[in-house]
């Protein structure tokens, strides 16, 4: 699975990470838990306004991830 980070999250995690994802899949919540444990990102990903984006959709913690998605974590956006 490819996971991309933007803004403040990219400072903490790098812009992109490749993760081995279980063949049976798992939820966004499980991905966040894993990123918390492996990369110390738990607090940052739980921060106010952080959204999870898969494809063109914002998804919730129960979204199922098969592993072939690109999952993005967006802090709150801030235009010009």
């Amino acid at each position, binding site marked *: 699975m490819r996971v991309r980070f*933007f*803004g*403040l999250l*990219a*400072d903490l995690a790098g812009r992109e990470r490749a993760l081995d994802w279980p063949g049976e899949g798992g939820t966004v919540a499980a991905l966040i838990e894993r990123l918390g444990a492996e990369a110390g990102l738990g607090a940052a990903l739980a921060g106010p*306004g952080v959204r999870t984006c898969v494809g063109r959709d914002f998804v919730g913690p129960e979204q199922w991830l098969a592993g072939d998605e690109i999952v*993005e974590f*967006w*802090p*709150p*956006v*801030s*235009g*010009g």
Partner: protein
Amino acid sequence: MTELVLTPFDEAALYRAFVAAVPATSGAVVSFTGRMRGADAEGAALERLVLEHHPERTAESLRELAERTAAHCPVDLLQVIHRAGAVAPGEAIVWVAAAAAHRRAAFDAVDQLMDRLKTEAVLWKREEGPRGRRWIEPCAGDHSDRARWED
């Protein structure tokens, strides 16, 4: 027309090109330039503003926000140019222009599009200066400005 650019742009040239395209039915032209202030909210000097963008979604968001604004304001022309990447003090960050039959629609379109951009454009902004780097999010005032307009 909307455009995301990674290098400085010439706002005077943009204005000339815009007014050249304004139809004769437009009685009003309004433009706005947002420029990089060389100081943060506390007045401390800044060296640059960095606008991180998304490879696909940032340009799309500019188009969507311009389309939504045009759906609410009867404009003949509406244009936005937005910088991404590192912006130096004094450089333009964003340029918005509207042409409409009457002035209120042109003022409202520029005002509304800027309020939408400040809260919804897919950009992540950080200030960099002698005191370090700091990520910026829309403030309460930006959200209340945005709330003046319908979705």
